[in-house]
């Protein structure tokens, strides 16, 4: 299930060399093998032209873009840097880099002090420094884009984690992460010309097409999170906006990265992702300068974690789960190609696998096994047939349904297939009933009225089908056997399905005898004889859906299983129909 799209620029960077050696078809194949989906090869110009017309696109760049779908859990493939690194290692063109956390060359590490006020709003924060980084326009754009992608994905639209990046040379630590009343926070936000209080900002951004989506995260909190430097300069007001003062530019040499969060694990992952991807451009590539986080209780922690975890597993495990027969060394090599540096330990077929900080998706041996299978090539695995011996059984209710459907069509009725979700009106007002009297299940977040409730009866669907097909020659004879949903306190979820059979006859005369005849035929199929007591009979009933005196309950072995009759003219009108109509609806579960 591909979840994210990475745009990879196809020019202006040495890293793309590897891609250039491939034809588009070969690159497509490589993506497929690696679990990526090359969606399309396009350009900014082409995209704008497609979305806004040729005139708008005239000035746009025609540099080739590869639009690639990346699996939703592979944050390390979200930017050009990580994607190319991953593919190069996969193709044995590059050794997997080792990410190192280092102390500053001189002085103390940068410090981020968390105060206890943050506890109620956004309690976690981590930080790190990218020292002596060299940005180019492409690198800078990629850096900004990765933050945005992480915000949308793992950060769950900034609700779990928010990333702030700052030009370290414009601010001075130690930094304080605290929370204040919105009226007490005042600063010049990113790309604005004057200072605003947090209260003002919240109303300013109400109309911002991008930022308004994040306001709800803190809006109703008494205190808003904010990060200050030692001079009282505001770095950011997470998760909404950074300060303008510390904004990074192409000239920025030293980047201070902070991640504030409601989920500590994700904050660490996000920070690791940012620094592993972009430390490549530091004077000492793949090194990251540590920062110290001081907690309200006085404890301290050094970040980024950049944790390497070691796992041991056997070659036999991989071979057996995948269905291959490879040597321990070969398996270790396969894993290494997936950025999981591995080696045979020599103890039997034991393999030691090192999981780098970039692979937060590896949480179990089965994830390692999958990587071995990918590197081996899914399509190189021999397809085998399991010996599993089983005897098939049909679900009795479905078996009955299948058999009945066939014979109802043979009886001259046509099968309809309607939605299980509908409006309250469909199952209540339109049928002359009150919604409060229906045992309906209600949906809390319908986008339209069509999805307010689960249907409690099949009748409205069939009447709507007739209304949509009024041009068809009369009579219309329709049926449906399907599930309705009813509230039921005895079930763990408080509701259950009920399998119903419903049929309607629509013609110039009501045709009660036709529907009645269909009931007789159905009972014949179900081997129930017409008789009171042990058989079936119908008995006059009162129902606001039906025409007075033209409605009867269906009793089978003394139990009421449904109803039939001539529809009330008001019901016919409400479904925008013009002809008389008779209908039958009954439960089929009693016949199992």
């Amino acid at each position: 299930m591909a979840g994210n799209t990475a745009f990879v620029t196809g020019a202006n960077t040495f890293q793309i060399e590897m891609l250039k050696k491939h034809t588009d078809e070969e690159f497509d194949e490589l993506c497929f093998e690696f679990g990526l989906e090359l969606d399309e090869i396009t350009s900014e110009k082409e995209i704008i032209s497609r979305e806004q017309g040729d005139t708008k696109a005239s000035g746009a760049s025609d540099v080739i873009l590869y639009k690639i779908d990346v699996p939703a859990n592979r944050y390390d493939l979200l930017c050009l840097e990580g994607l190319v690194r991953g593919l190069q290692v996969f193709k044995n063109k590059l050794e997997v880099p080792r990410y190192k956390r280092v102390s500053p060359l001189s002085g103390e590490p940068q410090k981020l002090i968390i105060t206890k006020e943050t506890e109620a709003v956004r309690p976690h924060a981590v930080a790190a420094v990218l020292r002596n980084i060299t940005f180019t326009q492409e690198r800078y754009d990629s850096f900004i884009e990765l933050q945005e992608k992480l915000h949308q994905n793992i950060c769950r639209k900034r609700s779990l984690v928010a990333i702030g990046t700052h030009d370290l040379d414009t601010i001075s630590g130690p930094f304080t992460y605290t929370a204040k009343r919105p009226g007490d926070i005042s600063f010049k936000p990113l790309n604005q010309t004057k200072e605003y209080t947090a209260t003002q900002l919240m109303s300013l951004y109400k109309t911002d097409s991008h930022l308004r989506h994040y306001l709800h995260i803190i809006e109703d909190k008494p205190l808003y999170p904010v990060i200050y430097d030692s001079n009282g300069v505001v770095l950011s007001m997470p998760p909404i906006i950074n300060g303008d003062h510390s904004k990074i530019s192409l000239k920025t040499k030293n980047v201070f990265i902070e991640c504030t969060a409601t989920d500590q694990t994700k904050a660490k992952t996000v920070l690791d992702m940012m620094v592993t991807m972009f430390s490549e451009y530091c004077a000492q590539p793949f090194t990251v300068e540590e920062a110290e986080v001081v907690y309200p209780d006085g404890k301290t922690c050094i970040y980024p974690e950049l944790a390497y975890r070691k796992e041991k597993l056997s070659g036999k495990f991989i071979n057996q789960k995948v269905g291959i027969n490879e040597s321990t060394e070969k398996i270790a090599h396969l894993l290494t190609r997936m950025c999981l540096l591995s080696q045979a330990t020599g103890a039997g077929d034991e393999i030691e696998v090192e999981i780098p900080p970039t692979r937060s998706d590896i949480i179990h041996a089965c994830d390692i096994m999958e990587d071995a299978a990918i590197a081996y090539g899914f399509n190189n695995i021999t397809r085998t047939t399991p010996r599993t011996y089983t005897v098939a059984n049909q679900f009795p209710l479905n078996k009955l349904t299948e058999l009945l459907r066939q014979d109802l069509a043979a009886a001259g009725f046509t099968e309809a297939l309607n939605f299980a979700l509908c409006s309250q009106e469909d199952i209540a007002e339109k049928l002359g009933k009150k919604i409060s009297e229906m045992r309906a299940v209600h949906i809390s977040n319908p986008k339209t009225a069509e999805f307010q409730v689960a249907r409690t009866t099949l009748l409205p669907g069939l009447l709507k089908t007739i209304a949509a097909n009024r041009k068809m020659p009369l009579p219309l004879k329709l049926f449906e056997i399907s599930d309705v949903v009813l509230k039921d306190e005895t079930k763990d979820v408080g509701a259950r399905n009920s399998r119903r059979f419903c049929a309607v006859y629509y013609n110039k005369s009501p045709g009660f005898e036709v529907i009645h005849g269909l009931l007789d035929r159905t009972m014949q199929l179900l081997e129930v004889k017409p008789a009171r007591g042990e058989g079936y009979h119908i008995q006059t009933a009162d129902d606001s859906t039906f025409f007075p005196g033209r409605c009867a309950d269906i009793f089978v072995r003394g139990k009421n299983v449904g109803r039939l009759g001539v529809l009330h003219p008001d019901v016919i009108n409400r479904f925008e129909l013009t002809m008389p109509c008779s209908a039958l609806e009954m439960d089929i579960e009693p016949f199992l």
Partner: protein
Amino acid sequence: MADTGVLETLLQRVEKVDDGVDSLAVATSLGVDHQVIVGAVKSLQALGDVISAELRSSKHWELTEEGTEIAEQGSHESRVFSCIPQEGLAQSELMKLPFGKIGFSKAMSSKWIRVDKAHEGGPRIFRTVESIDDQVREKLLLVQKGHSTQLEEKEKNELKKRKLLSEVTVKSYWITKGNSFSTTITKQETELTPEMIASGNWKEKKFKPYNFEAMGVAPDCGHLHPLMKVRTQFRQIFLEMGFTEMPTNNFIESSFWNFDSLFQPQQHPARDQHDTFFLSDPAHAHEFPQDYLERVKKVHSEGGYGSQGYKYDWKIEEAQKNILRTHTTAVSARMLYKLAQQKFTPVKYFSIDRVFRNETLDATHLAEFHQIEGVVADYGLTLGDLMGVLHQFFTKLGITKLRFKPAYNPYTEPSMEVFSYHEGLKKWVEVGNSGVFRPEMLLPMGLPEDVSVIAWGLSLERPTMIKYGINNIRELVGHKVNLQMVYDSPICRNPPTHF
């Protein structure tokens, strides 16, 4: 059928001549309307090869309405002449007669009458001759009797100019003997009747040939819905492969069984309001297997069973939220949990039923669709086994060229998207999703550690739309269905050979 008398007379006429007769001539000689003879020709033709009739057309002079009147009552001038008595007639009186005006001038120029303008009481008209010869009428009578050839062309054109004659094209038949010519008529029967069968006289009868070009009468019948026909076939395939059907008749599911039990973390986007229908009533599920719930909570928040877990604060409140199930895998989870509570025996399960997504709708996406799902649980199943089972399954659909792409799915690892080669599009297209259920899902249920569970899924609507050539899903599913399409849809022998 024309009058048998006319038919026989016509046949007798044809018999008498060597070459043939003209229908028009026959009509004239019999003194009947031409159409009667045309009808007789058609009736005889319908009897088979009794006669052969060749359509001919000829020019023919015919009286106009005015001409017919003159043929009956005389020319206007003759009528003027005959209405003038010996003592003469006042001109004003004459002019009151319908033929007065035209007849007067014609009679004047023929010098049959004269006007005494000086007569007391106004101009008066007197005969100038004793008797007249009404040639116009005689000529017209000749034409009327079919003897127009006796008139000269000049005379006919003059009468045409006076709008008394017109030249018309007449179609007639040239009738000759047919191969089975006979002067007696055998009536052709349209259909075999019970009486004929009883009496055996069908042996002597001739039967009217059928028109095999025409369509038959559509049978009066009911129809099965095309999507359900395809469902029946998929069901059949699973049953042929020994898969047991799961009870999927529970659209309402708790988030616990739909997500948590599948090791889908509580912050996963699929659990968002934008993707899933939540219930306001009944809002929560209230009953869970408590031990199992604790194990699920632990594997999410802390890990275990060899897993790091997701390391977050797992909340029962999230798990209790009732939803409309987003996949039938929720039922698979319940089934596997149930299986784990007994002594393990290998199983193969399948289901085809509705699932619900609160997504943006378009021409190919609805808020509800049918998911087809297959599950196999056994000791030591491999990824190769999953691909082998998928190969068998898709072969039954007529799809033999498959390849697999690594993918991500929260509850399967490895996960594979299934692609088939589309001969029409000349490219690989996705036909389904598959994978091996994660240990974090299976082990908390209590399944033995060496049991693997492989599974795959696809939608029912997409292959059906392709099979029946439907572009808008609303024409297939829901009340806006095109019933004509339902009436016309063919049987589903095999589910679609390509998607």
